[in-house]
């Protein structure tokens, strides 16, 4: 703060010496921000490179040049340069999986950024605060009891049953955690995380209960939700996730200015002209839609929604106009990379991708929590 010192002379001059407090860790990290004009091309290039590499690697390797040749062939731009069997593997197995990873990663990354804006808290994550498990619970209930109690409806809804259930579960959990964690100053980290722990515990217990009533086939379906996997990818699933996901991404992108204003507080955002109630409702709906789509087809892939937005903020600052699309791109890249490692690390078997993201994401979260500890009770 400024210190005033009276210097000699008739005219009283006031010299102010700015002795600023040493910058905090956050402050230091922001000294060199990457301009958005650089960030997006770099992230996009990274994502494309990862897609090409991930599509080629596996039990049956395809070189990057052959991957490109096959893609060009499919696009009708070039002919030959690969073997037909390569095209079969790439087109029916690898590519749907990689593209599902891109879609799910983008959804989780942007949903994390949106929830952090809504909760006014950079530690919110769909997995940690229980949104993912709420969605997973709804999916489990739909699988087990849907066929038991109302098979006609379950049949009629077909591929839509699980996403609809996941979306409903996600919305309900977000609202519940928000109500529990909310204080007049914002959402308390402690209350939010505790509510998330409780939601996770309840969801896991009920999923466990449902698994006792499940048939063998249903059981296989259930266990995979706890850890997440991109293995069930097919083109129809990629299509559904991409279409509905595009709606969710567009919906969250429209909230960018309001989410920025929310950083100042709810009342302040209202004074700045933001329709806060509708902003909050839309943020809940679109983030739950995004998380619901991811969970319905790939199970719980944790920590992406925490790690991706955080890295973007460290690189380019907290402006939602940069963080929302940046987190989507980085989330997609991280998911494709994690799935690649999950497939290769113990080949020919594969790890659930959720195990990998948790192994990387959980220590990252602990690190953030340690740094934020001093601010824990400020709301």
């Amino acid at each position, binding site marked *: *703060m400024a210190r005033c010192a009276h210097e000699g002379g008739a005219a009283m001059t006031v010299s102010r010496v700015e002795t600023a407090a040493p*910058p905090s860790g956050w402050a230091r990290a922001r000294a060199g921000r990457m301009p958005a004009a650089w960030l997006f091309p770099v992230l996009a290039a990274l994502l494309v490179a990862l897609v090409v590499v991930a599509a080629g690697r596996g039990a049956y390797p395809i070189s990057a040049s052959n991957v490109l040749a096959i893609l060009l062939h499919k696009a009708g731009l070039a002919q030959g340069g690969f073997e037909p069997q390569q095209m079969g593997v790439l087109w029916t197995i690898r590519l749907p999986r990689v593209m599902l990873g891109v879609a799910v990663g983008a959804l989780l990354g942007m949903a994390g950024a949106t929830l952090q804006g809504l909760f006014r808290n950079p530690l919110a994550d769909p997995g940690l605060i229980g949104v993912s498990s709420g969605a997973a619970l709804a999916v489990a209930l739909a699988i087990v009891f849907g066929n038991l109690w109302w098979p006609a409806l379950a049949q009629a809804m077909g591929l839509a049953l699980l996403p609809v259930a996941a979306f409903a579960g996600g919305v309900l959990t977000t609202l519940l955690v928000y109500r529990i964690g909310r204080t007049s100053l914002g959402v308390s980290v402690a209350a939010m995380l505790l509510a998330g722990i409780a939601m996770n515990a309840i969801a896991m217990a009920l999923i466990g209960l449902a698994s006792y009533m499940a048939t063998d086939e249903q059981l296989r379906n259930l266990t995979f939700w706890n850890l997440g996997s991109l293995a069930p990818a097919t083109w129809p699933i990629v299509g559904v996730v991409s279409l509905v996901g595009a709606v969710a991404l567009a919906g969250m992108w429209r909230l960018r*200015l309001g989410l920025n*204003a929310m950083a100042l507080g709810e009342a302040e955002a209202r004074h700045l*002209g933001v329709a806060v109630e509708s902003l909050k409702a839309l943020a809940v709906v679109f983030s739950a839609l995004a998380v619901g789509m991811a969970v319905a087809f790939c199970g719980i892939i944790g920590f992406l929604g925490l790690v991706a937005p955080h890295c973007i903020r460290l690189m380019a*600052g907290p*402006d939602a106009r940069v963080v929302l699309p940046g987190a989507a791109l980085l989330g997609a890249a991280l998911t494709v990379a994690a799935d690649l490692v999950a497939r290769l690390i113990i080949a020919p078997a594969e790890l659930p991708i959720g195990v990998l993201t948790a192994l990387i994401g959980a220590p990252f979260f602990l690190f953030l929590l340690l740094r934020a500890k001093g601010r824990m009770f400020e709301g």
Partner: protein
Amino acid sequence: MTNMLEVRSLTVARRQAGQPHPRVVLDGIDCAVGEGEIVMLIGPNGAGKSTLLSTMAGDLGPAAGEVLFKGRPLRQWAAGELARQRAVLPQRAGLSLPFTVDEVVHLGCLARTEPRRRLEGIVRAALEAAGVTHLAQRPMPALSGGEQARVHLARVLAQIWPGETGSGTGRLLLLDEPCASLDPHHQHSVCTAIRDFAHRTGAAVIVTMHDMNLAAQYADRIVALWEGRVLADGEPRAVLTRDFVRRCFAVDAAHWLADEDFLVATRPLHGAA
């Protein structure tokens, strides 16, 4: 002089933990502020200053009575329309993400309709007025409390700074304790900035203020609250008499004039006996 903001027989009750019935915090308040006028709300702790300001801002709903902005009840104004003509500075503004000073002041321009290039000029002018131009590129978490308070003042000034948005006059500024965390030098520079803004733009300003001395020097009119009622409403020199200060704040006051400025100092009551 037309009334920008008018409060009519306002009663506000707040529910309190462990109490079965809400407590009446404001009881039949009448007051108004006109164009270019600075009204300062003073009163002891718990008199209802901040509650009155929050009700004027629309954050709290009145149990009875009404708040009129330009003759129209506050509830009838659309959020965006209101934001282009009225800005509110809370007592303690939080920030959940590490924006820079420049970005925070830009946030104030959310409802403005000018093109980006013109906004830059408005932000620069607001930073200058609040005396924080030199901090523009610094991240908010690295600033002291007093510096952050001045940045938030720049933000609300930028929100209703004259420009193409909400053209003409008719601006209102509500400030809750803008000087609370400032050193004496910055208390005066902030009050001067507020006065310059009001006189240049014709904005009506309502400020809650603890410091009677600052209120005496910068207010066009003082509204004194005591236990939820208006105890006095008038020019500083007429209101802040020794008797009044004793009754309202239970302290002894001394006044003097320095180059036409009206100064007030206080000491404990028993010392005066």
